[in-house]
């Protein structure tokens, strides 16, 4: 199995492409073999479509799973040691569409939490303080399964000392805890976290007329649900401007992730690009399935070193985006960075967070 001790000891954005490529391919190959051995569906795909396990010469030639298959099948990688499936994760899915089903065991779950923590250490101070979640506690009402929003909230809760929900069970805004916090702890760091469309609908839109007290020490982290934002033509600039003018927070980070790869999310930097960390990698493919050149739109294929109990380590998404550069982003982070444009037409909208 993979040497996770080693993986977690590396700075998440510290490796250049040259340093990362063969190391990452080596680890992905190991993970591929693990899923090949223990997931019968993955094995069939590998044999019939890729001519067997050992045919690859680089990362792009490893067998991937088109993301829709997580809706069609309950894909499980089960090697007797890890049948302690603790939870089933589901994408929240738009009404009428099928959900993705992710069978999560304890080990994978732990790896995901740790990776998430390491990725966000990059933008958070060591002292983490309080997190205000733009969501409702009812998200945790089902003990057996968890949707993408719940999984993200749970993951981020582990990064902080205290979690406070800002919405009640009917999704009404209860802003007082945040206001009180700002009064009593004017100099303390805090985090506001939520799904992008939730922050827009239930926070920004609700307080547009009354500017909150300036919250200079806050960091806002949001992700998912960008499809809904796109439909309303809310871009990054407008979203960020509104946050600053209503909540007063200036430090805002989006992230790109999916329920199949919880943990190894792609963090948006100060310049608006998503970055792959050492846990992840990204490839852009054109209509002929070939690798797209820099800045050219294609389907995003995303990798993760974390999934052990289901074959989510190598997924072709239904999201369109373009690689924007490698190692040279102005933010200083090493590795690949990219942008996202939208969802491929003709496929049912999947939107992890477009839930209600």
């Amino acid at each position, binding site marked *: 199995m993979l040497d996770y001790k080693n993986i977690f000891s590396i700075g998440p954005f510290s490796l250049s492409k040259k340093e990362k490529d063969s190391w990452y391919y080596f680890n992905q190959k190991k993970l591929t073999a693990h899923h090949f051995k223990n997931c019968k569906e993955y094995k069939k795909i590998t044999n*019939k479509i890729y001519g067997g396990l050992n045919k690859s010469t680089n990362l792009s030639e490893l067998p991937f799973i088109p993301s829709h298959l997580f809706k069609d099948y309950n894909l499980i990688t089960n090697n007797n040691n890890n049948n302690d499936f603790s939870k089933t994760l589901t994408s929240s899915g738009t009404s009428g569409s099928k959900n993705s089903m992710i069978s999560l065991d304890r080990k994978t779950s732990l790896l995901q939490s740790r990776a998430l923590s390491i990725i966000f250490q990059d933008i958070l101070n060591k002292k983490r303080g309080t997190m205000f979640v733009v969501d409702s506690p009812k998200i945790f009402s089902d003990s057996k399964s968890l949707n993408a929003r719940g999984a993200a909230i749970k993951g981020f809760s582990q990064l902080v000392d205290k979690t406070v929900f800002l919405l009640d069970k009917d999704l009404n805004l209860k802003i007082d805890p945040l206001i009180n916090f700002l009064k009593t702890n004017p100099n303390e760091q805090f985090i506001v976290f939520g799904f992008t469309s939730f922050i827009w609908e239930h926070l920004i839109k609700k307080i547009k007329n009354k500017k909150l007290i300036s919250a200079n020490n806050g960091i806002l982290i949001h992700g998912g649900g960008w499809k809904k934002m796109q439909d309303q033509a809310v871009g990054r600039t407008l979203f960020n401007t509104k946050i600053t003018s209503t909540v007063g927070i200036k430090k805002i980070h989006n992230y790109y992730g999916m329920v199949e790869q919880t943990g190894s999310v792609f963090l948006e930097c100060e310049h608006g690009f998503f970055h792959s960390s050492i846990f992840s990698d990204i490839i852009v493919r054109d209509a*002929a399935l070939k690798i797209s050149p820099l800045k050219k739109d294609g389907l995003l294929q995303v990798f993760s070193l974390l999934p052990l109990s289901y074959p989510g380590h190598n997924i072709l998404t239904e999201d369109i985006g373009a690689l924007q550069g490698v190692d040279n982003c102005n933010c200083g982070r090493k590795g690949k960075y990219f942008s996202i444009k939208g969802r491929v037409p*003709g496929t049912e909208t999947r939107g992890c967070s477009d839930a209600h």
Partner: protein
Amino acid sequence: MHTKFNNKIQIVLGRLMMNQKSLIIFDDKVVDFLNKIFIDIKKNKDAKNFTDLQAFGFWCRKANINVLSENYKRNKLMLGRGNILHIAPSNVPMTFAYSFVFGLLSGNNNIVRLPSRNFVQVEILCKIISNILKKKRYTIIEKKLCFVRYDKSNEISAYLSKNVDARLIWGGDQTISQFKKFDTSPRCVDLTFSDRYSVSIINADKVIKLKQEEIKNLAYKFYNDCYLMDQQGCSSPQAVFWMGRKNNQAKKEFWKHLGKIVDSKYDSDLSIMNQKITSLSRAAIESKINFNLNYKNFKLIKLKVKKTSKNIEDLKCHFGTFIEIEIKNLNELKNIITKKFQTITYFGFDTKNIEKFILNNAVTGIDRIVPIGRAFDIGPIWDGYDIVYSLSRIVGK
């Protein structure tokens, strides 16, 4: 028409006529009207961009219709059965038009439900027909057609089904099973066009005798059969059987030429790519058939299948995906062919031998044998029916 449907049903063309009198088959007035369609499509600038609309127009010309009419003996009186309901498939633009014309040629009144998707060529054709019908000369035709659109509604479909003398139900197994649930009159005739499967057979030894230009031409015809509708048409081949001693050489040449054509002509996009790789991955998981995916160009995928397996039709091949199987003689096909098989497109065979094979082996499928390049040539004989015969009332004497 019942008034309660007034808001739900949109009449695009004509009127809901229920009691117009029937004409004889291939009535001169109908042939004249069809020829006018041919002329007007030819003249129409907007129609130029649509090869399927052009093909339909060309098919409607008098010379072609007259040739078709030769097939029907006129010593008996044959006239329309009455009112026909046509349920067109939603994914193929022009099927509704042929269906309508078959109904007209057999002398009937026609209620045609247009495809639910808004195809530009459908709009153009409706406009052309609408203009023709304004002429006094075609009043009689105007009373024999009604093009409608309505959102899926069992209520409307049931009502229409109850009041017609025949139904042409395109659009696959699901649509058919839905329509079979509706009450129809005791004498109502149903022609159903279910989900079908089609294949090609190629004589390799004949291919290698061709000049490069001829192989290219053959590949081009094959391309038209397969790629024009993303290989989704029921007569588009999904499997290719190679017969002969020089298989490898023939395959190499044929696929090479097809690859070039596909590369320059077929517009794949990210959505197609995603659907294609998703459906292939699904097939890898679900199909009992062992295949090996093979491609240099993702737009042209070959699935190598070693043995001639049963149920190859379960392996769905779309957007340029082909099962490839080598056979030594036609008889090897007898265990593969099921009732689902519709069209065999061929190269390098004598149709008599294929017919002999069907007869000798009492094969249950195959309703059509045409040369490669003619998969989409639709005619009154389709899916094993003679549609004009089936829709007409033959007065015995």
